[in-house]
C-alpha cells in the first residue's frame, strides 16, 4: 500500500485482516487473494477496481459471504464471518448484505413487488409488514408506479432499480454492487449512479466492484487490486490513476482502456514488490520436495485467528 487512509471517525463495518484465498487448479495453487487488509467504515462509498484476474471477484464473493477465505479474518458488522458455517453465512447474507448484480437477476415470473419481497421470504423478521416494506423500498428507488409490472415489462434501468430496492429491503449494513452498470447504456448508468449517491447521502454503506473509471469516480474511495494484493487505496480526489484519467478525458485523449502513466508506475512497483516477496519466501522455505507440493495453502489455525483478532480489537 502506498498510502494509508486518514483515520475515519465512524466505526468500521468491515474489517479484513491478512485475507487469503487459494485455489487448487490441478497441481498449481492459484493465489486469488494473497494477504489483503482492508477497513471499510460506516457510510463509506468504496469502489473496488482491478483488471480481470486481479482477485476482485474473489474479494467480492468473500465480502458477500458467498465464499469463505482460506485464511485470515473478515469481520462484518462485528460478526466474525470466517468462523461461521454455510448456514450461518446464509443468515448473514440475508441480514447484512444487499446484492446488486450486473445482470439484475430478477425472477421473470414475479412482479416487481414479489421480487423485492424475496429476501424477506428467508428471514424471520418483517413477516407481518413484508409488503409494506417492499413498497417503501420501491418508493426509495422511485418505482411506485411499476409495483405490479414484471421484469420483462420494465426497462434495463428500471430493472436495476427493482434489484436495488430488493437489496435495500432488509436494511443491510452494506450494499454490494458487482458491475451494477455493466449492462446499462450511459444515460441509465448516470441514473443508477445518481441513485447510489442519494442512498449514500442517506447514510448507506456502498461497495461497488467495477472496472470502469468513470463509475469508480463517483465513489469516495478507490481500492485497487493486482494479483490478489491491494496496490492502492486512496480517496477518489487524491487517487493518482483516477486523476490521470480525469486529465486525459478532459483533454479528450486516448481511450479508457489505455494504461496511464501513473497506473503503469504503480503496477510495475507493485509487481517488483510482489517478485521480491516471492523470492524471499522461497529463500526462507525449504526446497521443494520431489513428490507433492511443498506449498500447502495456508489454513485458519486457532493461533492465527487469535493473533488477528487481538489485532482487530486493538
Amino acid at each position, binding site marked *: 500500500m502506498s498510502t494509508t487512509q486518514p483515520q475515519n471517525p465512524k466505526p468500521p463495518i468491515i474489517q479484513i485482516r491478512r485475507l487469503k484465498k487459494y485455489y487448487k487448479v490441478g497441481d498449481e495453487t492459484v493465489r486469488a487473494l494473497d494477504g489483503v487488509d482492508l477497513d471499510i467504515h460506516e457510510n463509506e462509498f468504496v469502489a473496488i477496481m482491478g483488471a480481470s484476474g486481479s482477485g476482485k471477484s474473489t474479494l467480492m*464473493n468473500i465480502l*458477500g459471504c*458467498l*465464499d469463505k477465505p482460506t485464511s485470515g479474518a473478515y469481520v462484518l458488522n462485528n460478526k466474525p464471518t470466517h468462523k461461521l458455517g*454455510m*448456514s450461518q453465512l*446464509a*443468515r448473514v*447474507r*440475508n*441480514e447484512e448484505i444487499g*446484492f446488486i*448484480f450486473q445482470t439484475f*437477476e430478477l*425472477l421473470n*415470473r414475479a412482479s416487481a413487488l414479489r421480487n423485492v419481497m*424475496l*429476501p424477506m*421470504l*428467508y*428471514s*424471520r423478521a418483517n*413477516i*407481518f409488514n413484508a409488503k409494506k416494506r417492499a413498497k417503501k423500498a420501491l418508493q426509495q428507488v422511485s418505482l411506485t408506479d411499476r409495483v405490479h409490472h414484471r421484469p420483462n415489462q420494465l426497462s434495463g434501468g428500471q430493472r436495476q432499480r427493482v434489484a436495488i430496492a*430488493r437489496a435495500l429491503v432488509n436494511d443491510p449494513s452494506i450494499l454490494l454492487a458487482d458491475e451494477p452498470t455493466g449492462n446499462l447504456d450511459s444515460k441509465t448508468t448516470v441514473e443508477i449512479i445518481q441513485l447510489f449517491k442519494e442512498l449514500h447521502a442517506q447514510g448507506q454503506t456502498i461497495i461497488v466492484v467495477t472496472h470502469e473509471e468513470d463509475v469508480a469516480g463517483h465513489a469516495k474511495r478507490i481500492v485497487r487490486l493486482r494479483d490478489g494484493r491491494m496496490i492502492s487505496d486512496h480517496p477518489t480526489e487524491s487517487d493518482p490513476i483516477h486523476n490521470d484519467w480525469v486529465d486525459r478525458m478532459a483533454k479528450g485523449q486516448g481511450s479508457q482502456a489505455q494504461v496511464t502513466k501513473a497506473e503503469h508506475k504503480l503496477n510495475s512497483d507493485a509487481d517488483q514488490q510482489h517478485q521480491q516477496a516471492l523470492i524471499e519466501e522461497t529463500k526462507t522455505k525449504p526446497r521443494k520436495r520431489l513428490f507433492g507440493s511443498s506449498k500447502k495453502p495456508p489454513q485458519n489455525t486457532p493461533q492465527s485467528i487469535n493473533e488477528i483478532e487481538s489485532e482487530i480489537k486493538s
Partner: protein
Amino acid sequence: MTGILLAPFAFITRFLWQTVFLALAQVWANKMRSMLTALGIIIGVWAVISVMSGLNGMRGFVLTEFEKFGAKKMWVWGRVPDDKRATMSWSDVKLSVYEANLLLQRAPSIDSLTPVTSNSWPVTAEKKRLPSVRVQGIWPQWHEIEDRQVLFGRPFSRIDDDERRQVCLINDQGIEELGLDTDPTGEYILISGRRFLIVGVVETKDASNFGGGQARTELLIPFATLKMMNPYTWTNFTIQMTSPDVSEDAQAEIRFILRKHRGLEPEDKDTFNMFILQDEIKQFNAVAGVIGAIAFGVVVISLVVGGIGIMNIMLVSVSERTREIGLRKAMGAKPPIVLFQFLVEAVVLCVIGGLVGLVLAIGTVAILANIPSLSALENTEISKFAVALAIGFSALVGVVFGMGPAIKAARLNPIDALRHE
C-alpha cells in the same frame, strides 16, 4: 407481543404457502411439460383406483351372494369313503336323528341344527293335482336357520315333529300351482294320498344366484312325519354356527363327535362330509388377494416409471433455474430451504397428477358400474382407501424421486450458480 409469539408459525406458514404457490406457478408456466411429466403418475393412479375399486366391487358382490347363502351356515352329510365303496352302503353312513341330538348337545360351536330330508310325491288339492312335488322334512329350527318365517298361520313346533302330525307349510309358488286361496291355512291337501293340514305360508326368500334362482313349489312337513312315510330317504344336516369365526372349531367338533359315535379308527377316513361357506369365502378372498397383489405390483411399477419421469423433469428444472437458485442462496436461502422448495415442487406435480388420475378413475368407475353386461361390477364405487393410497403414493413418489434433484439444487454453490449460463 403476539407478533413475537406468532412469528415462527407465521414464518413457516408463509414459507409453505409461498413454496406451494411458487410450485403451482411453475407447473402452470410449463403446462404442456408438466402434463406430459405427470402422465406416468396420472396413468398409475388411474389404474390403481380403477382396478382396486373394480376388484372391491366384485368382492362385495360375491360376498353379498355368500351372505344370502348364509355365512354362519354349514352342511353335513354322510359319505362312503372311496376306499370303502365295496364294503359300505350309503345307508350305513346316513346321518341319524340321534347324531343330530348328539351334535346339538356336545358341540359348543353349534347354535342350532335341523336335519333335512326330502322325497317327491304326487300332491292333490281341491282343484289341481301335481304328479311330483318335492316335499322336504324339517325340524322347527329350520325357520331360524334359513331365516324364513311364516306369513300366515303358524310355524312348525316341536310337537308337530314329536307326534308326527300331518301338517304342512307351503310357499307362494305352491299356492299358485295348486290353485289355493291366498291364505290357505286350515285347508287340506293330499300328499301321497295322506291328508295334510296347511298350517302356514312360508315366505319366499330372495334366492341367491348360487341357489338356482327361480323360486319353485315348496312343501314342508315335519321331519319325523316324512321319515314315517318313507324311512329310506337321504338325510343331511343344516347347521347354524354361533358365529362365522368359529367355522374351524365347528368342523373339528363335528368331526370328533361323529367319528367317536361311529367308532372310526384313526386310520379310517371320515364317513361323512362337510361344506362350509366360510371356506369358500376364504378361497375367494385368497384369489382376490392374489389379483389385488398383481394389480398392486403393476401399479407400483407404473408409479416408479412415472416417478422417473418426475425426476427427469426436476433435474431439467434445477439446471434451468440454476441462476435463480444462486440468487435465492445469495439472498439468504439456506440449503434445507432450497431443498424443500424443489421437493414441494415435485410433490405438487405428483399430487396434481394423482388428482387428475383420480378424476379419470371416478369417470371410469362410473362407466364400469353402468355397463349392463357386467352385473358383478354394478355396486362398484371409489373406495376411500384406494383414493388415500393413490394420493399418498403419488406424494411419496414425489418425495422419493424429487429428493435427488432437490439435493442437487441445495448443494449448488451460489457463486457457480450465479455465473451459470
